[in-house]
């Protein structure tokens, strides 16, 4: 039993984006396969766990849902830290949320302060594809933005119709796992530990997260 548990990989996935673009709905669709009817703004942050098997490995993805309002970003430090990958969501029917992608990416890099600023795994998600009235943000424009911002990957989803939601999260998690391998190489002194990937990852996350917390306590 213990062995099995140790094989799990823990990943922290953070989802960011403007208010009302459907972050909570996407996560809810992915973790509980239902579309939320009772919309409610996310205040602060929430998170849920989802266990999936990807490439033969059991992954426990800790998916963080964050508040879209700018004011809450000042508290983002504690939520973004230790993330393994990040999904930036925009609403395809709301062009301003697309224009804000820059802001979100920069805010994440600033507050989350991941080690590899240039290569940190982002996934750009264009949500609400079901609202097709001809005025949606075009795929070409979104792809262009992604290309200009470090060759990010782009995917179009609809939480309502359950279009490509699973695919988007699988991609995110795969990216996070790739990053983890890089980290393994970067931290050779921890390699000697018994349960390499698992504990290592968890320790990394803990260490990064614990520091600010300890400061607050004392």
């Amino acid at each position, binding site marked *: 039993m213990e062995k099995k548990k140790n094989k799990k990989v823990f990943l922290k996935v953070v989802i960011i984006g403007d*208010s*009302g673009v459907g972050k909570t709905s996407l996560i809810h669709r992915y973790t509980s396969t239902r579309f939320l*009817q*009772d*919309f*409610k*703004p996310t*205040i*602060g*942050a*929430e*998170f*849920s*766990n989802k266990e999936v098997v990807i490439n033969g490995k059991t992954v426990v993805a800790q998916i963080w*849902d964050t*508040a879209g*309002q700018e*004011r*809450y970003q*000042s*508290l983002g430090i*504690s*939520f973004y830290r*230790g993330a393994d990958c990040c999904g930036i969501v925009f609403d395809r029917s*709301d062009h*301003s949320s697309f224009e804000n992608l820059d802001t979100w990416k920069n805010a994440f890099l600033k507050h989350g302060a991941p080690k590899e600023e240039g290569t940190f795994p982002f996934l750009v998600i264009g949500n609400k594809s079901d609202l097709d009235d001809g005025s949606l943000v075009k795929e070409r424009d979104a792809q262009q933005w992604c290309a200009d911002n470090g060759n990010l990957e782009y995917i179009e989803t609809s939480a309502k119709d359950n279009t490509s939601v699973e695919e988007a999260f699988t991609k995110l998690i795969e990216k996070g796992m790739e990053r983890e391998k890089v980290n393994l190489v970067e931290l050779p002194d921890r390699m000697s530990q018994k349960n390499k990937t698992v504990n290592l990852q968890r320790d990394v*996350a*803990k260490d990064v*997260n*614990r520091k*600010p*917390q300890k400061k*607050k*306590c004392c």
Partner: protein
Amino acid sequence: MHDIRANSSLHKWLTKRNSPTSNSPCGEENLFHRAMNSSISQNFNPSGTLVITNLLDLSCKQTSGYLKTFKKKVKKLRNACKMSVRHNQESNLKRLTYDNLNSLKTSVLTESVTNSLANTKATGNLNTQPGINLLHYKDENMEIQPISEIFEEENKENKENKEHSAFSQSSLHEHRALGGYKSSGQFAQLSQSPKNYADIFKKVSSDDSHLVSSHKSSYDQNFSIKMSETESRRLENLKDSSTTERLQSTNISIDPNSYDEEVKMINFLPKIKGNQCGCKLSSVSTLKCCASMQKWLSVCFLEEEDEAFNPRNHPEFNKLLDFFYRTKVDEKLCNQDSQLYKDLNRTFQVLHYFREGERGFSDTKKLLLKFLAHPISKESGYVQGMNFIASTLLYHSQADVAFCLFIKMFEKHNIIHNYEPGMPGITDHSFLLEKMVSKHCRTLSNYFREQAIPVQMYTIELICGLFGGKIPIEKMKLFYDHFIPKGWPFFYALVVQFLEEIQFDIMEEEELTPQAANAHNAPNLKWNQLISKAVDFEFSNNSFN
């Protein structure tokens, strides 16, 4: 235009009629006679209360007949209003016209009541067999529904027009006028808010309890007019709710599986103006709120509970009220793309009352826009979480009164501090809460530390929304009953009780779901118990060490 003049004199008559000092009925009665162009006034019963009591004796056919006349009259007057507005943009005229519209409503009601009286007198069944008529009324209740729709439609249009014109002035006028009607008792009630029949019936029912108790079920039937038979049967099963809004509120904690069905049912309930909360009405008749709201106001403004407290006599309250009516709002702050608009569409949407196009929605919008115009919000602007606080207060009163409490409460407990840039309040409260949690729920605190869950994770939502959206809205009253006088210490105690209650769900098999951590999906949570525990909570000297 002749109509209008006639009706304003009627209005005058009604006001005088009901004041205790008036003892020369003949002259006024003639005036009434002329005003209504009707011969029935000889049968008019001078006692206002009795007249309203006899409203119950209206048989359905009579009522619907008068309602049709009424509908025509309203339509006519509305057209006249539109015309006059088109030709003359002066707000004064418009105000005048709308005031007269109100008196017309009163007059038509009076007319129908009087006719009914004449009828009952003639047949000699005055107050002897009201049950029969009521039953009759019940049978054909489908015909009644349109009137409340007319009223509501009227109300909406009335409001819209007001807002477009010299909004602040005319509202202020209305608001001042309310004080003047105080002595005219129930007629004042009719003339200020004749938008809904149900409201009038409710008022009557609270005054004539003997009638209510014997015909309660009939009332219920009347309120649930629009419902199909099965729906009303279901309602009957839910038992003992003299007002349908209470039913509406009992349905908030919804089982996810039956969600759609329940929502459908809520949609089905007639929309009733007045206190959604089902609380007792305030003893101060001119105050448009329930007794709980009045209690909170008295705690906020007087620092003590006073049942007879009339905030209208309090200078600070009047100042805020004045601000509410005088200030022009910046509608741009609530356009389609604004944060406020997005959130309004996501606040208590389970309740019909808070959906777009409904009064709860427009009142929340109005309150928050006025709040944004107030100097208190200069630093913060609108921040998510305020919507829940505003809506919770509006559940118990109208926008103007709720606004005063909202501002006063923000000042009293420095709530605004939580929303200012950098959110200093959150940091302070989280710091103290973390200490308390580690002291009182040691296991959970250790678990959080192990999982590297920052303290803000579970506190922000509670602090910013003041448990709004967590505690079902009908139980929020209990929270504010204690939070308003006691402030943050009570809040901390409740958070500790809340976390203690759900800690095993959180720690179970290392599965931390947002539901467990945030519990907005935990309808089984016994909030009454948690709150009473929090009230008894004793802070030890080292609670914060």
